[in-house]
């Protein structure tokens, strides 16, 4: 059963220097209870895609999509007011920087109670009780004391837990987590990821995890989308992506990691060059300039999607039958 189905999302920003095409035709699906990951490096458009869905981008953003179906309802023709009712209620969001996501002037309790009162129409005491339950749910001790504390009195890890509590308080069907552990220490991040996993099992929430950390996405997500320069270049279930990657960017990304070469002092295999300028994105495949296996057709044309079965889809010319003929295809 599909909870979210996005078809052909395009987002462009109007800036002084021109139009930045941040998202160029992204389509994705999330099933009920599923956990999907969107990986990519900075500027690839992963955060912007999600913020486009939620309509929380600045005014100079142009958002277009063929269709955005959430829980059976088409969102593209709905007014902004409808979407804002979904936020915090049916769709929760967690961001990277918990210090700036929480209002420093209000207590934790105050901020937890707010969505409950607004979206669920609870009374003050009902909301307070639920808020304290949520604080315990995210494994913070002494909920009554925490309720009246301010964000700066808590550590980074605790604030992130509060963010999770806030996002889950209205029991949303979908949770969008944008780099939830990037700013946290390793041992704290491990705790948060474990917490998210457990909560997901308990509450059946679907999760979209946005991150650049391949290790995190491998351990947390069932299905993964790999983004580069505003497009999805490869997608598949976790095993397909990590044991059988096909797109040169995915392969390159995995080879960059020191863990992939094991011990033994071999050199890492970096991806040379830098991502393209999205004001003038290239006409063909955006990865051409950095791809070791680039062909003439790559510079000229954007590849179509090739379905390799079991949900593994790759957008790369190397899978074209002519590529096989030219001896270039078949990526090891």
């Amino acid at each position: 059963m599909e909870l979210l189905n996005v078809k052909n999302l395009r987002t462009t920003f109007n800036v002084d220097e021109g139009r930045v095409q941040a998202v160029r035709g992204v389509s994705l699906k999330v099933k009920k209870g599923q956990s999907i990951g969107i990986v990519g490096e900075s500027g690839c458009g992963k955060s912007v895609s999600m913020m486009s869905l939620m309509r929380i981008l600045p005014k100079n953003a142009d958002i277009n999509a063929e269709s955005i179906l959430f829980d059976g309802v088409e969102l593209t023709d709905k007014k902004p007011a409808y979407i804002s009712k979904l936020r915090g209620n049916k769709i929760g969001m967690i961001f990277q920087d918990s210090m700036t996501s929480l209002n420093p002037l209000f207590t934790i309790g105050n901020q937890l109670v707010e969505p409950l009162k607004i979206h669920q129409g609870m009374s003050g005491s009902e909301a307070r009780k639920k808020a304290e339950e949520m604080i315990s749910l995210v494994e913070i001790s002494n909920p009554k004391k925490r309720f009246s504390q301010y964000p700066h009195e808590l550590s980074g890890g605790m604030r992130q837990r509060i963010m999770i509590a806030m996002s889950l308080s209205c029991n949303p069907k979908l949770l969008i987590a944008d780099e939830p552990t990037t700013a946290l220490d390793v041992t704290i991040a491990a705790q948060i990821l474990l917490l998210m996993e457990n909560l997901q099992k308990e509450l059946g929430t679907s999760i979209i995890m946005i991150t650049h950390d391949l290790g995190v996405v491998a351990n947390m997500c069932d299905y993964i989308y790999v983004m580069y320069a505003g497009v999805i270049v490869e997608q598949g279930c976790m095993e397909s992506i990590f044991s059988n990657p096909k797109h040169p960017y995915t392969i390159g990304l995995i080879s960059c990691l020191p863990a992939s070469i094991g011990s033994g002092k071999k050199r890492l295999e970096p991806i040379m060059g830098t991502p393209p300028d999205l004001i003038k994105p290239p006409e063909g495949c955006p990865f051409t300039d950095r791809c070791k296996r680039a062909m003439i057709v790559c510079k000229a044309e954007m590849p179509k999607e090739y379905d390799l079965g079991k949900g593994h889809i790759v957008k790369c010319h190397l899978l074209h039958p002519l590529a096989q003929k030219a001896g270039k295809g078949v990526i090891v």
Partner: protein
Amino acid sequence: MNQDNYTLEMFKSLSEDEKSGEDIVRESTSYWKDAWKKFKKDPLALIGLVIIAVLIVFAIFGPMISPYTYDKQDYSVKNQWPSSEHWFGTDKMGRDIFTRILYGARISLLIGIASAVINLIIGVIYGGIAGYAGGKIDMVMMRIVDLLIGLPQLLYIILLMTFLGNNIGSILLALCITYWIGTARLVRSQVLSLKHSDYVLAAKTMGASDAFILFRHLIPNSMGMIIMTVTFLVPQAIFAEAFLSFLGIGIQIPVASWGTLANDAIPTLFTRPYQMIFPALSISITILAFNFIGDGLRDALDPRLRG
């Protein structure tokens, strides 16, 4: 192009030269070029710039072209309304007001710019040292500043003028006693926030002296702020001088500043209002123009926007 129309040729490898690699696509822009681009977009700022440019041209060349001098008295034409011979009319001693306004422009601009520059230098050095040194030195320097601010400005300006006489030099001195304080505070806060930047630490690891860091890193990075402040100092000084002269304690006749002209025009305010209007307008428009420029600069130099 239809995927089925591809040819085998297209699947040959792309050579390294055909890829872009490390090139920087956009034109080189420095901080100032960028700022100028933004400044140009602000219509009020441009108007201000034009007004000041015109004013400066008039101030320098005007008096040479004008057939009259600022002090030639001709009682036969006294108190005349503006005409084709005397564009702004004449005053009670028959002097051409337009010419006097031009000379007045010289004085106002001179005092405004000179005092702004002097205050700038004092303020930057004082604020820079206080901010960089921090600790006790900073504390002492700032308490001195607090004391100076506490004194009633007008009072000691008047005292100074009384002792030193009413000339341009003494006005400049009077304006320099406290007008640098705003700049100093601003530079100090800039330096305070910048001195912990990584590039300052990097300079320290290379063995840079404190003076080197202050003058090569901290002050240049505060330049935007500084220039903007200076642009506001000029109208402040012009106004102060005009005000003092208007009260009769500034420049004395026959040297004409706009304030003096306004002062002269008080007795004839209702009978010959033009004698007051022209100097007053000159003061207002000039100050407004500088303020427009200052606002435009503030927006153009906003550090949040670049890099």
